[in-house]
Structures are given as structure tokens and as C-alpha cells.
């Protein structure tokens, strides 16, 4: 981050008096806030229904719900546009397709927020779910016996007690909306809605002498926005006690009775809209010979797959890079975040909140800014050891570590907040030193959160675009870059085919996890109940 200080010089006044900037701040805030609400409703709803209620097919629902994160945001955006636009096969089929050139309803603040919500719902889902699993069953039961209806129990007991997880999820969702580029780029620009990241991007496009200064100023605004978000989070959580007293490990189950069918319908409908629709669109475009060609058995072709799989050498490199990068980041970060999280929650030091705020900022910064900062820092060889990591995969790894630190940290911190301290005390008295305790007691106890953290980071990193877009060089392409580049250069079907392959790969990896589930601590695999 040292590079940033060098970025701050001059031009600030001009920029700060530009009404366009303030309009962008406003739009960023509204879209992100609404997007967060949407993510909370969608992800929170799933988490609640799947962990607390007796709906059927939980495993399948949980499994499928994770997948939309894996579809690149631009693809999701495009498929939604396709679905709601004049060429929508769906709308055409029911005769409701709008005429050629009708305004696209998604090109709006609401549309952006909606897609933010869809994209970030799994973040809330995973984070909240970990919190819910830590709830002691008897607390819920006591409330029900007090006469509280399911709704009241939810409102008075479950949500307040799982508030750390809930708020953590909402906070990551908010911050990642603030930093999102793909969705406002596709949905916002046509409607002249600029968010700070798209504004920054356009600054880079018209590269001038003031660009670095302008961009750092805008980045500063983003940082301020996310710090404001975090302060709100901190306020909400401050001064309360979430430490579970007594034994957790069993989750109270509500019966839905007659509502069950309705609940299940809603869940599957949500899966259909957030997953099946964009995925179908994705598969359709991967099979189409060219964009806009109607897909029929006659026109369908596997050429795109052939090209991606066998001709483009970049595919294999990208798969290899992304998977190793994502796994390394996810697991490496877990180690870091468990330690940091432990420190943040247990330490009474005043430095702690500052550390946690600092951790959050890189995630909110648009990738392009972070990447440029890293280049400024690392392009020259590192002073003492004299090695340059610029141009190697290591710089991307460094970028991922700093960028996803917050994603990894949040669920873990919230789980620590709920931990009954006496569990750790008992381990200490057993003679277990810090490391020992961490491995044997603390980490398994926060397993659902740790699992959520690893999976979240993996999913996001696997698809990461903006950071690696600037930092990659020959041989270090990532999947996100590969897909984006294919798409950007007009090879839409190749991009779609590669995306489909990525989704398949993720499903395969999730299945492997599913097979290993029995050997992992309880709650790690988020779709299992």
C-alpha cells in the first residue's frame, strides 16, 4: 500500500468539485446499499430456510446456491439482459418479448442492485449459515416455549444471536458491491449510471498526466465508503455479547407445516432465476456459432469447446493458474485470518478495530487500482532480496491475498465472537499451547465459518478478473482474464464455453468435497446439513 501515498498529489480540488464525481458516489452508495439488501434477502433467506427449517432437498439447494458466484458477473448481466430483452427466447415463447430496441429495464439503479444481490447472495448465505450453526439449540427452544411465534423467535433470538455472521455477510456484500466493476460496466454505462469503479476505469482509459492522482483520490473515496460501512457494522455489533453459553452443536429445527411446499417452491424458483437462467444462456451461447444466431439443433455446434479445449493453449494454463492461485489463496488466507481473527476478537487492544478496517479496504478497491498500486510497489526488484516478483504469478498471489483478506476474515471473526470462551480455557488447562489449541479446538469449533471462508475465497478468486487483468503477463493468465479477453475480443462463444467449463470444474471440485465431507469437521461443507 505504500504506493498509494505516492499517488496523492495535486488535482484534488478539480476532481472534488466535479459534480459527476459526487453523482458517482451517490450512485455507488445507492446501488451498493440496495444490492446489499437484495443479497441479504436472498442469501439470508436461503441460509435461514436451509439451516433452520425442515425443507427437503437441503443438500441440493445449498449446493446449487453456491454456483451463481461462479458465473462471471458480466455473463450473468448479459444473460439477464438477454432474458429480459427483445431477443429473449423465454419472453418470445410466451409472446411478451418487447419490440426491437425497447428500453432495457435492467439498465437502471434497480437493475444493478438486483444483480449485485444475485451475485453476492452466497456471501451472505455462507456467513450467516456459519453463525446459525453456532446457535445453541436450547436458546431457541426456550424462546418458543415462552410463546414466541417462529417469526418472533427469528427476530428476537436467532437474528440477534447470529448477528455477527449476518452483519459480516452484509458487510462483505456491501463492500463487494462498492468495488464491483463488471455489473455497473454492463448495466450502468448504457444508462449513464457511473459508480466509482467504472468512473476510475474510464479515467484509466483516457490516460492523462493526472490519471494517477485522480484515481487515487477516487480510490480514497471508495475506501472512505467502505470504512463508513464498516463503522456501521462495528456500531451494530459493539457492546453486545454473542458468546454462546453452554453447549452448541445442535441446531433447533422449525417445522414449516403447510408452508413447507411454498417455501420449497420459492427456493427452487430462486435457484432457477439465479442459476438456471444464466447458466442456460451461457450454455446456449457456447453452443451457438455466432452471437445472435438462433440456437437450433441444426446450428448448435461444439466448435467453441473444441477450440477452447484443444487449440487454445491458454486454457490449460489459465485453469492451472487459477486453481492453484485460488486454492493457495483460500487456504493460505485461512491460516492468516484465523490468527488475525483470534487476535481481533480476543485482544482488547485499540489497534484491533483499525486492523480490521485496514483489512477491508483492499477488497473494496476496484481491482484496477489495487493492481496498479501493486505494480508501483513491486515493478522494481524488492530492495533487500533483490528479486522482482513483478510479471510472475507471485504478484497475483500477493494481490489476491490482500484483496480477499476481508472475505476470508469476516466469517472467521464472527465465529470467534460466538465462541464460548470456556471451551478454549478447558484446552489451555489441558496443557495445550496456542498453536495446539488453535488446531485442535478453535479451528474445528469455527469449522463452518472456516469452511465458508475457504469456499468463498476460492469461488471469488477463481473468477477474479480486474486484479489479474492488470497483473497478468505471459504464462500467468487466470481464468477470469482468459474469459474476459475472449469475450472482449468478440469471441463470445469461446468465452461462454470456457465459462461453462469453469462451472463444470467447480461442480466437480464441490463433488470431491462432498465425497470427503465425512472426513472433514462437521459444518465445513456448506451445503450439507
Amino acid at each position, binding site marked *: 500500500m505504500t504506493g498509494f501515498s505516492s499517488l496523492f498529489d495535486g488535482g484534488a480540488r478539480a476532481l472534488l468539485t466535479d459534480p459527476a464525481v459526487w453523482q458517482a458516489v451517490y450512485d455507488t452508495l445507492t446501488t451498493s446499499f440496495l444490492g446489499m439488501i437484495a443479497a441479504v434477502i436472498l442469501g439470508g433467506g436461503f441460509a435461514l430456510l436451509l439451516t433452520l427449517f425442515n425443507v427437503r432437498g437441503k443438500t441440493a439447494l445449498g449446493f446449487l446456491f453456491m454456483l451463481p458466484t461462479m458465473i462471471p458477473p458480466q455473463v450473468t448481466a448479459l444473460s439477464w439482459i438477454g432474458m429480459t430483452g427483445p431477443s429473449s427466447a423465454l419472453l418470445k415463447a410466451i409472446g411478451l418479448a418487447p419490440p426491437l430496441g425497447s428500453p432495457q429495464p435492467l439498465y437502471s439503479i434497480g437493475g444493478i442492485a438486483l444483480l449485485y444481490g444475485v451475485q453476492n447472495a452466497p456471501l451472505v448465505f455462507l456467513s450467516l449459515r456459519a453463525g446459525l450453526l453456532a446457535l445453541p439449540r436450547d436458546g431457541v427452544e426456550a424462546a418458543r416455549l415462552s410463546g414466541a411465534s417462529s417469526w418472533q423467535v427469528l427476530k428476537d433470538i436467532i437474528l440477534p444471536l447470529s448477528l455477527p455472521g449476518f452483519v459480516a455477510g452484509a458487510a462483505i456484500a456491501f463492500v463487494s458491491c462498492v468495488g464491483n466493476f463488471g455489473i455497473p460496466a454492463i448495466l450502468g454505462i448504457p444508462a449513464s449510471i457511473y459508480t466509482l469503479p467504472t468512473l476510475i476505469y474510464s479515467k484509466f482509459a483516457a490516460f492523462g498526466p493526472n490519471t494517477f492522482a485522480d484515481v487515487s483520490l477516487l480510490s480514497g473515496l471508495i475506501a472512505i465508503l467502505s470504512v463508513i460501512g464498516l463503522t456501521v457494522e462495528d456500531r451494530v455489533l459493539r457492546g453486545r455479547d454473542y458468546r454462546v453459553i453452554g453447549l452448541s452443536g445442535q441446531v433447533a429445527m422449525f417445522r414449516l407445516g403447510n408452508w413447507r411446499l411454498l417455501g420449497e417452491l420459492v427456493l427452487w424458483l430462486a435457484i432457477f432465476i439465479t442459476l438456471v437462467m444464466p447458466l442456460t444462456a451461457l450454455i446456449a451461447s457456447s453452443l451457438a456459432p455466432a*452471437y445472435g444466431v438462433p440456437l437450433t439443433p441444426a446450428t448448435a455446434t461444439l466448435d467453441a469447446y473444441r477450440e477452447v479445449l484443444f487449440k487454445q493453449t491458454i486454457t490449460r494454463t489459465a485453469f492451472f493458474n487459477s486453481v492453484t492461485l485460488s486454492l493457495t489463496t483460500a487456504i493460505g488466507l485461512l491460516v492468516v485470518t484465523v490468527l488475525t481473527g483470534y487476535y481481533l476478537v480476543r485482544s482488547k487492544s485499540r489497534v484491533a478495530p483499525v486492523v480490521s478496517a485496514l483489512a477491508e479496504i483492499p477488497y473494496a478497491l476496484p481491482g*484496477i487500482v489495487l493492481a496498479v498500486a501493486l505494480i508501483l510497489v513491486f515493478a522494481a526488484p524488492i530492495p533487500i532480496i533483490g528479486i522482482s516478483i*513483478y510479471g510472475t504469478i507471485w504478484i497475483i498471489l500477493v494481490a489476491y491475498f490482500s484483496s480477499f483478506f476481508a472475505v476470508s476474515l469476516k466469517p472467521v471473526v464472527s465465529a470467534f465472537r460466538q465462541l464460548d470462551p470456556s471451551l478454549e480455557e478447558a484446552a489451555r488447562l489441558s496443557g495445550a499451547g496456542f498453536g495446539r489449541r488453535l488446531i485442535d479446538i478453535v479451528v474445528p469449533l469455527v469449522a463452518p465459518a472456516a469452511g465458508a471462508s475457504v469456499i468463498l475465497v476460492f469461488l471469488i478468486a477463481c473468477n477474479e478478473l480486474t486484479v489479474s487483468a492488470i497483473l497478468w503477463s505471459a504464462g500467468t493468465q487466470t481464468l477470469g482474464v482468459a474469459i474476459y479477453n475472449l469475450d472482449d475480443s468478440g469471441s463470445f462463444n469461446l468465452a461462454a464455453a470456457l465459462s461453462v467449463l469453469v462451472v463444470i470444474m467447480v461442480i466437480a471440485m464441490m463433488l470431491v468435497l462432498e465425497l470427503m465431507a465425512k472426513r472433514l469437521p462437521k459444518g465445513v461443507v456448506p451445503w450439507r446439513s
Partner: protein
Amino acid sequence: ADLVVYTSQPNADAQATIDGFKAANPGVDVEWVRDGTPQIMAKLNAEIAAGNPVADVLLIADTVTFERMKAAGQLLAYKSPEAKNFDASLYDADGYYYSTKLITTGIMYNTQAAMKPTSWADLAKPEAKGLVTMPSPVASGAALIHAQTLAGVDGLGWDYYKDLKANGAVAAGGNGGVLKAVASGEKAYGVVVDYMPIREKAKGAPVEFVFPKEGVSAVTEPAAILSSTKHQDNAKKFIDYLLSENGQKIAAGLGYIPARNGIALPAGYPAREEIKLLPLNAADALKNSEKDVKTFSDIFGTKG
């Protein structure tokens, strides 16, 4: 690596170019990085700011950028022996950069569209109301050149853009987005670079491309050597290769209008003489680029 190339050519095209170069110069290990012009420039500028640019050769969309770099002393002058086969307007007299191809910007339309446009003026007609999309100069180098070119044409000018805006045209994103919008029928007409719709049409997409009768603007995707290069010889070889007959044929094979004289145009294009290029003064364009972006943005309400 013996040579590092930063380019904004599409992946497959970049790969083909590099492969061709390698075939002509065996033993040279080339690394290349492909991204959109803005990203490439962000990356490069950051590297320069950090004092360690990695690239040797730059192969990106427009002369304007190169003019700026030349002024900043970031380019290396090199007189290529191949230059004699090129129109003098297509390379820098001092040898700082060489155009490699012509990418024109014209009009594409969806085959379902009611009106078949033949001129820029058609897009401002009531038939096209709300149906026009174009790339934004903030996202595409070609789009900026295009806007600056049309702005200088009598009878069009910035008023033309105001008319377009009044007619409900939108300006957003890059050329890829325009292509998708028109191919999918979301919009009927698009202002777009030539090779995209021509290629897609060949693959069966329901689109047509026209060279409007007033003429088209063009970017030339020039190549240049960075003054900081550590592989001067290879870089020069690369420039020579791009300009060579062989290199130019490969460009044509990929669907671009080659810059070198005497090479046949790819399928789907009219004869070279029929393509009327609108004039543009590169020096003015450079001087005014920020102002022009702002003018455009003010008209279309885009920011930046």
C-alpha cells in the same frame, strides 16, 4: 524472454501474429500480453512510473496514444526498411511508430431492422429512434478517433452527435458490447469497427456491416518500440515482420484491412478504392483529445 509484446489485438489474432513472427524468426522466445487498450496503458504507465517497464513492443489501437508517448520520450525511433511499401500517412516520419492495419468504423445493423442505413445521417432519422448504440470514447480508442473524425466533417460535426442523442442513441462500453447489442436485437443499429460484424456475419450472425457513403474513420493499430527496451534487435525484427508482406498477409487472413500496399483485402470487404477514409489530423486530435472526450461526454451524459 527475448521479447515482450503488449497488444490489444484479440487473443486468437495476437496468437496468430506471434506464431507468424516465431516461424520467421526461429529461436526468439516471445512473451505477449493481451488486454484492452486502457488496461494495457494502465499497466504500462504504472510500470513506467515504477521505473521498470517490461514491454519492448507495443501494438495497440491508435496513433493518438503513440503521439502522446512519443512526446513523452517513451518511444524509440527506428527506420524500418519495409516502410517504403506504406503510404507515408501510415507511419511516423521519424520512425517512432508504424501502422499495421486499417480498422474502420462504420455502421452495423440487425437484419431484422426495418431501415437499411447507408449513411451516417440515416442514424439520426426517426426510423432509428432509440435503436442506435455506439461505443464510448472513454472505453475504446477507436471510438474516440471516430468521434473526433466525424466532428471535423462538414455537415456532421458535434451537431450530428447532438441529433443522435436527441434521437435516443446511447454511447457505452466498447465495440464488443455494440456487436452483442445489435446481434441480439437489443438495438437495431450500431456504430462499430468493421472486422467484428464482418466476421460474425460469416459465422451466421444476423448482422450486416455498411461503409456509409460519407466515408469512415479509421484507426491503424500501430506498433512501436519502447525507448526502455532491453531487446532492441528483436524488437526491430518484430516491427519489420509486422510490416513485411508475410505479416500483412496474416493480418488480412484474420479479417483486417492490411496497411501495406498491394495486399488483397479479406472477404466481406468492398474493394479498397471504394472505402472512403475521412481525414483526421493526428496532432490536433492529440491536442484536443481530452476536450473532445469531454464534449462527447457532455452530450451523451457519460462521465469521465
